[in-house]
């Protein structure tokens, strides 16, 4: 158990370093752009005085290192600055929009793993027969279009032509739920409104599937490839030589070792989904971090851009840490790094 703790500490350390690097990178990029953020924020009618005042507040005339210093100082005290777009603290904006995106992405992640892994196992089990070919072709297809294309297709098919699902938004207008956590799945339960609870899920499914689709394809292909490779390994043959049933071999001998390389890539795919959430949210009018993110980017709202990117990078790093821990649990070789001689 202590090895797991050591791994955790080490990964957290690396993540902090990475986050700092990310913040520096975006900070540098944002400050190097042409154009005056203060002027853009205040609009064309701003006076020179107003601009100068805002520039002073934003420390825009100082050395870039000093600017970064101010940024870190504020960050440590939990202040991400004010968004020039919403005129609210960025932290408040993030608190409002992040849960919507997180709900979407987590459901998509569950769908991705819940469908992708079994499909990959199925394909590997029946390799080179028709279920395998079918899964591989479908998986490749899903990976071949950006999420917004799938979002559009799904919406056309299942919300327009077959009106099975709602077209947009998180919740039908007839419900008024108090935002406690921001996670509607939770808040509806807190409010005790089960009709609203189902309504939330009804809204969640189509965008989550659209988001997960290419991830499912990836996960299926990867799992299949890993399992097929594992099936070639000598210990599988030995298990067969001992007459264990194919189901048993698939489950106990083949699955676990092939899971490990899959997990790493699934962690990266999760990151890709965070990026793709932007696209799906646009199609389904989902009030999440992406719409906010795109808007602040178009408005060169520096504070908000920094905040959004940092939060996303943070989420990604946390997911990666969890995946790494999972891998450590599954792979004894990582836990016991000493070799015993006889």
């Amino acid at each position, binding site marked *: 158990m202590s090895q797991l703790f050591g791994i955790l500490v080490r990964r957290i350390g690396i993540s902090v370093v990475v986050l700092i690097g990310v913040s520096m990178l975006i900070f540098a990029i944002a400050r190097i752009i042409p154009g005056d953020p203060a002027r853009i924020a205040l609009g064309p009618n701003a006076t020179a005085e107003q601009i100068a005042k805002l520039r002073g507040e934003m420390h825009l005339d100082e050395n870039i290192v000093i600017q970064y210093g101010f940024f870190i100082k504020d960050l440590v005290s939990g202040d991400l600055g004010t968004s020039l777009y919403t005129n609210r603290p960025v932290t408040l904006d993030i608190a409002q929009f992040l849960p919507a995106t997180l709900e979407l992405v987590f459901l998509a992640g569950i769908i991705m793993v819940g469908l992708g892994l079994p499909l990959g196992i199925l394909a590997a089990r029946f390799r080179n027969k028709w279920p395998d070919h079918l899964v591989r072709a479908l998986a490749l297809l899903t990976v071949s279009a950006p999420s917004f294309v799938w979002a559009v297709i799904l919406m056309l098919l299942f919300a327009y032509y077959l009106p099975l699902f709602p077209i947009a938004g998180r919740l039908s207008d007839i419900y008024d739920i108090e935002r406690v956590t921001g996670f509607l799945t939770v808040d509806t339960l807190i409010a005790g409104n089960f009709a609203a609870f189902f309504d939330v899920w009804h809204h969640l499914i189509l965008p989550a599937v659209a988001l997960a689709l290419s991830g499912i394809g990836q996960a299926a292909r990867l799992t299949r490839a890993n399992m097929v490779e594992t099936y070639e390994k000598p210990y599988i043959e030995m298990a067969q030589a001992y007459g264990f049933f194919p189901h048993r071999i698939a489950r106990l001998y083949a699955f676990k070792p092939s899971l490990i390389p899959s997990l790493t890539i699934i962690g990266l795919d999760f990151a890709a989904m965070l990026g793709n959430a932007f696209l799906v949210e*646009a199609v389904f009018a989902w009030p999440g971090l992406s719409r906010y993110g795109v808007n602040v980017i178009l408005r060169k709202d520096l504070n908000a851009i920094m905040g959004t990117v940092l939060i996303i990078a943070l989420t990604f790093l946390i997911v990666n840490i969890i995946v790494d821990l999972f891998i450590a649990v599954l792979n004894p070789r990582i836990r016991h790094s000493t070799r015993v001689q006889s």
Partner: protein
Amino acid sequence: MIGVLRIIVRNPMSLLGLILVGLVVLSALLAPWLAPYPDHNGAVVDFLNNNRAPSWNNLMGTDLVGRDILSRILYGYQISLVLGVIVLAIATPIGTVFGLIAGYRGGWIEVVLMRIVDIFLSIPPLVLAIAMMGVLEPTLTNAMLAVTLMWWPWYARLVYSIARGEREEGYVVAAEVIGASTWHIIFREILPNCLPAIVTKMTLDMGFVIIIASSLSFLGLGVQPPTPDLGSMVAEGARYLPDSWWLTVFPGLSILVAVFGFNLLGDGLREALEVKS
């Protein structure tokens, strides 16, 4: 080379990929001649004919200002392929050299270089591209810059892992013993062993670059109108679903077809090259 080609042609899936890629490339190269309305790739308006459903005049319908969608898709392929080629032409060499040096030299060079790579890799690609496009002017050039910037680390990582493995191999040690210079070892000895993986990745990446680029322009962050871009065409038409479905469906499908082709071809290449080795 011929051997690889033969393997690809034998396999129905990769053959399909080859055909699709061929069609896309041909469309892009010959767009001015193939397009029924070649001038529609620019700022042309024809309000009498706008928003028409597919017909014999316009096989894929017309867009909101009356331009023929089929023609614009052909030109859109041009843009997509140019973007992909340039991005890969820049990102691949940079990433490869990075990876080779880090993988072969090891030591603190390896640590520093790969940490840099890790920083880039830790940001979801689309997020980085979007963030960059947000602070730069949304033009084609800047889009290429943004995508290139987030692409090279993947090659670095790939080449690094191969080079690191090859570092201990006999032929490398032999070259060192002879006294070959580092550059010689990296480029003449190790690099050829990385080439199959690199080429496969590049083919698969073409599809991926098309996806990223169209995603960027879908959000309004890439190519600007009136230049035809598949992603922005989908974005424009999204508001008019479901009635004017052709505005989104055809550009969307054309993305799907192109990327599917590259993916099939890339997969076929990977299998073919493994078979060879």
